[in-house]
Every structure is written in C-alpha cells, then in structure tokens.
C-alpha cells in the first residue's frame, strides 16, 4: 500500500482582520472552582492547576473560592489606583511619542493587573527580571514617574544617560533589573540571582518575566532546567497576552494545551491565572512567593490576559487581527473589573472613579511637565556625548579614551 503523503501543519488564529472576533474556543472556567493547595504541596499533586484558570472575581465582580481574601480594602483601592496610574501614564507617553518627544513607547493596555498586583506580593529586596511590559512593577513599587519619564525622554536627568531605548528602565533599589531588548535572556538570569540568594543563605527571592511568544526562546528552557535542578527560589511568570507582535500565541504554544504545562516536564508547580483579575494575580503571586521563600523551590505562573493595544508605537495591529478583538476578550478589562468589585463592596462609586481618574491624570501631567522641563529626545536638556564613552567598563581603557578624545568630548 502506498503510504499517505505527509502534510505540513501551520497553526492559525481563529479570525483575521475582516472576521468577527471569536473566543468561543478559549475555555474559561468559572471563578472560585480552582483548589488552593498548601504551599508545600508536591508538584505532581497539583498538575491540574496548569490546565485550568485560577479566578477569584466572578462575573458579577464578587470574590469567590479559596484564592479570595489576600487583600484588604485599602490594598484593593490602592491596586485600582496603580492600574489607573499605569494606564494614564501609558496614554500620555504614547501621545508624547506621537508628538515626537521620544522615539518609541510600549504600553500595557489590558494587562495592568499583572505587574501591579504581583509587585504588591513581593518584599523589599526581592528582585524582578522584567520584560518591557512590566512597568507596573515600578508604578506599584513607588518608583517616581518623573524618573521613568526622564528615561523615556532620554533627557538630562535620564538615569540611564540616554543610552537606552525608552522604557528600558533599571533600578536596583526598586528591585527592577535592567531590561534587555533581547527576549528571554532575563529568565535564566532571574534563576541565577535566586541561586545566588540561596547560596548566600539570604531570604530574598527573584521573579522572572517572559511573554507568551518569548517562551519559545531557548533561555526559557535554560531557566526551567536550572530552576528545577537547583530548586531555585524564583517565581517564573509567563504573561500570555495572546500576541507576540503579529503572531498569535498558537505559534509558540504549538500543540500544547497551555503555556503553564511547560513546567510539568520539570516537575515545577505550574499555575494558570486570570491575568485580568487583580485579586487572582495577587493571591497566586503571594502563594508562589511564599513557596519560594520557604525553600520549596520555583513556581511557573501563566497569566491569561490580552494585549489590547498595539505591540509598540511601531505597530498597527489592525493589519493582523480584528479591530474589536480586545472588546470581545472574555476576561474583560482589569481596571473595570476591580472597579466593579470595589463598587460592589461599597468602597467605590462611578463618581469616585471619575474623580480618581482626574487625580491620577493630574499626577501624571505634573510628572510629565517636570520631566519635560529637563528635556525631551530632540529638545532641551540632553545627556552628554561623554556618556557614550563612560560606563562601558568600570574604568575607561586607553582605546576608549583615545576614541573619546577623537570625538572631541
């Protein structure tokens, strides 16, 4: 018998521009049903958490199930403010880029809960190894917005001296490792930092961050191998926002049911969480961080969310996905969901929200004004050309000194 011909398979998203958004194939479990095992549970006894979605807020905005209750009323209100601040910050910086005040920007629209809620579960001294889409770690950590803007504008007060692309922040004090433009490299570095902390008998833990698309990179594997072998005190976060520039998550995920399932082959506990649910993100982050700090080793967390905006200011998503997809996203908007919850609790109101929006905006505007007084990319105060030559090494070697002299600075 003639054997059948082989066929080449390329995964495709359900819908492309022109089509109607359709997420009916995305299984969304009910809130509250996922169990919350004790933090010392063996990975093999909690595999199902890699396939479901841990959700706390139900469709009416009420917290349900064993993962509820990790936050006080004040913390919830603060969380809402952090998300609103990040959103306002993004909107202004996006606009500043359009106005030519900087070269480039990347926003978090729709994903604000992930980094802001995670940050609140960390302790001082813990270290994040972020990608370019976790500025919420800084906002929720109290890093000055004006310093972020100085970096974005590459102005005279830019802490990175104009050397880095906008949004590539770095702050040791705020537990935010220098962002790399090269995807995934930070994931294994997070594991290395955590190994170091364990080697020194410290109490601080590390968190690595990666996007859905970037899980395909090799350093994702390096991180899993090292984290598993040395039981590193690290939380490895996957932000699955469904897209990697124009590429839908199915290209990186392939035949696998979920990204979280990647952890199972390493016997690393792997959890999938509603990334648009501030309460769920916080509860799971807290669990994983406690696990790490108590010497039970690494955890892999997949946050299921949606990149509602463009990939960056260089991108126009209408070329590859239906314009209204974000609206159709079944997990809703993280700001709206937390707002609804606070209103349900009697802690918040539509009016209060409008007022908060105005407050947040004026905070952002004040920061922007101050930052712009120190210059923007093409106008006003600038870092020096000397800064190009400084900091390549602790001490400038002769050949760089010669080059600096040739440059006349």
């Amino acid at each position, binding site marked *: 018998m003639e054997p059948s011909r082989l066929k080449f398979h390329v995964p495709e998203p359900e819908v492309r521009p022109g089509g109607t958004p359709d997420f009916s194939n995305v299984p969304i479990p009910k809130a509250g049903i996922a169990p919350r095992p004790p933090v010392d549970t063996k990975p093999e006894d909690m595999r199902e958490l890699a396939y479901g979605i841990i959700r706390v807020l139900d469709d009416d905005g009420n917290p349900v199930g064993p993962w509820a209750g990790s936050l006080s009323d004040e913390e919830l209100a603060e969380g809402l403010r952090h998300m609103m601040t990040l959103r306002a910050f993004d909107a202004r910086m996006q606009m500043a880029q359009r106005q030519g005040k900087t*070269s480039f920007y990347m926003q978090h629209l729709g994903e604000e809960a992930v980094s802001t809620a995670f940050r609140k579960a960390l302790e001082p001294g813990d270290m994040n190894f972020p990608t370019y889409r976790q500025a919420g770690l800084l906002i929720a950590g109290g890093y000055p917005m004006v310093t972020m803007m100085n970096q974005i504008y590459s102005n005279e007060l830019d802490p990175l001296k104009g*050397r880095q692309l906008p949004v590539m922040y770095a702050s040791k004090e705020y537990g935010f490792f220098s962002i790399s433009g090269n995807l995934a490299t930070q994931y294994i570095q997070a594991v290395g930092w955590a190994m170091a902390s364990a080697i020194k008998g410290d109490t601080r833990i590390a968190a690595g961050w990666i996007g859905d698309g970037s899980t395909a990179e090799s350093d994702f594997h390096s991180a899993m191998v090292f984290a598993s072998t040395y039981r590193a005190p690290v939380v490895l976060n996957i932000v699955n926002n469904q897209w990697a520039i124009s590429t839908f998550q199915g290209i990186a995920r392939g035949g696998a049911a979920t990204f979280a399932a990647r952890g199972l082959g390493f016997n690393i506990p792997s959890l999938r969480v509603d990334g648009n649910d501030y309460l769920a993100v916080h509860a799971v982050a807290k669990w994983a961080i406690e696990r790490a700090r108590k010497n039970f080793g690494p955890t892999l967390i997949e946050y299921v969310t949606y990149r509602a905006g463009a990939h960056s200011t260089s991108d126009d998503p209408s070329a590859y996905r239906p314009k209204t997809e974000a609206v159709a996203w079944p997990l809703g908007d993280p700001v709206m969901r937390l707002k609804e919850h606070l209103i349900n609790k009697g802690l918040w109101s539509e009016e209060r929200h409008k007022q908060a929006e105005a407050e947040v905006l004026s905070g952002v505007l004040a920061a922007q004004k101050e930052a712009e007084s120190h210059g923007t990319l093409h106008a006003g105060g600038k870092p020096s050309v000397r800064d190009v030559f400084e900091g390549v090494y602790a001490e400038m070697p002769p050949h760089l000194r010669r080059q600096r002299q040739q440059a006349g600075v």
Partner: protein
Amino acid sequence: MPRLTMIEAIRSAMDVAMGRDDDVVVFGEDVGYFGGVFRCTAGLQQKYGKSRCFDAPINESGIVGAAIGMAAYGLKPCIEIQFADYVYPGYDQIVSEAARIRYRSNGEFTCPIVVRMPTGGGIFGGQTHSQSPEALFTHVSGLKTVVCSNPYDAKGLLIAAIEDPDPVIFLEPKRLYNGPFDGHHDRPVTPWSKHELGEVPDGHYTVPLGKAVIRRPGNDMTILAYGTMVYVAQAAAEETGIDAEVIDLRTLVPLDLETITASVKKTGRCVVVHEATQTGGFAGELVTLVQEACFFHLEAPVARVTGYDTPYPHAQEWSYFPGPARLGRAMRETMEA
C-alpha cells in the same frame, strides 16, 4: 523600468526565487500572514501558501536549525532574523553547523540557506536595533557575507544568495530601506523612486557574490565602504572636495580584493569606513589586506572610521554614527599625512 524601495526589491527577489524554484521557502518571526515587521515578505504567504512562507516561533536557534535541516533535505530556505541584534541565539547553529556541514561531511550534506537580517543604525533604535555584526560572520570560514546598499543590488544579490550552494549571511541596512542615507539626518531623505539605483528590473537577474563596484571614480584616495556608509562616503567626497574613489564592497566574504588593490595602487591612499564598533571590526581585515597588497604604493597609513567601541547609544545616535563630517576629517588627515 519600475522604481522600487529596497524593501520591495528584497521582496521581489524572494518572489522571483520562489516562483522559479519550489524548494525555496521563507520563514521567520512575523514573516507569514503579516509579512514581516519591515514588510519584506508581505504577500508571499498569500501567493505561495502557508507551506512556503510562514511564521516561526521566537527562537532564532530554532529558525536557523530548522533551516539547516530543511537544507539537508534539499530545500533552499531563506530565513529572516527580525533584527541583526537578535541573531546571537542562533549563532551556534550558524557557526558550528551551517558553516561547516559541507566541509565536515565532505559534501554528503550541504547547507544552501540564506539568513537575512536588517542591520545598522540611524533609526533611534538603541542598542538592540542598531548593531552591525558583520565581523562576527566574516571571521567564520564557510560563510559568505553580503551587505546590500540599494534596491537594484539588493534584488540581484539576494537572488544570487538564494541560488548559492552555501550559507549566505545577507545584511540589509535598514536605514536604506526607503532611500539612500548619507548621514545628514537633518535633511530630508531622497526616496528610492528618485534614485537611479531604485530602478529594478522585473523578473530574474543576479548580481554576483564576490564582486565590488566603484560607486564614484576618483584619483586622490580610495574609500572602502559598504551599506549605508557608501552614501556617507559619497557625501564626504563631495563635501571635502577630495577626489575619492568610493568602492561599495557588496560582498565582504568572498572579497573582491582585485578591485580594491587596483584602486589603492592608483590613489596611494585609503580610508575604510563602517558603522560597526572599531576593535576587531571588518575594517581591520581590509586595512591589513590593503597594506599587505599595496604597501609600497601607500603614501599614508590606511585610516579607519567606525562606530565607537561602545554599545550603540539611543539619544546620542548622531554623535555615534560615523557621518560625513567624521569621515571627512579622516580623509583630510589621510591626504595631509
């Protein structure tokens, strides 16, 4: 003849190659449905189907490694690395594998792949969208390295690269995608539609690998350039009034040493220019070859003008970029030496 941008010319090259040979396949990050972040592969998936042009997972080692396997099977993959700055995760597959498979298997297996990547700065891309890593390939035996500088060449060289039986690194200076750029960032750029090298024939033709071309004949000195620096060199010649002969190398390996030597023997002076960092850059190779072949003709040391030995900065891009002023200074010094 139609005038095309360099992006369109590159796309046309792949289109022609895919049309003529079913074994040519194209893939990379975002290159399928969307057609690439620089749109170089736009329309190819629609025209040739998902088996011939498709999106790849974000894994450069995987992209190169899969291409090597496909080439061993008999295909001719032409792959895209989204930015040259992101080639390093795939460097092992290029250096240890693609470059050596013919040699180590004595031809049992070969590796006719093309690795395309946008290179160079000038777009405020910061350290990870601006690099010029050509020297990391020219040092590797078994690879050919091409840098195109205009739409006509880009198409002809890319078709030649795809048809080549060996692995070719194909660098596309992204600052030239839409028009020649001479380093005067404060002036508007002429689009390719206004430039004669924007004239790109339909259909099949090749520009052979290993042949340089003289872009500006001259008698006072020789400038060796490639990519964006070809226009910087032409501008510097006009602005300094030095009658420089500007050679566009086009292929770095194999190098057209004959054209270089003939020119330097004629002019007696030589400046090499590239955007990449200085130490260990390809300029070192060129200077060495020139002084070896033309020592007794040289009236001044061969100078080099390059990027500084620092990561590529964001805000200070125009201080970093080797523009006509910096090159002009070196040219004058070389004339006066």
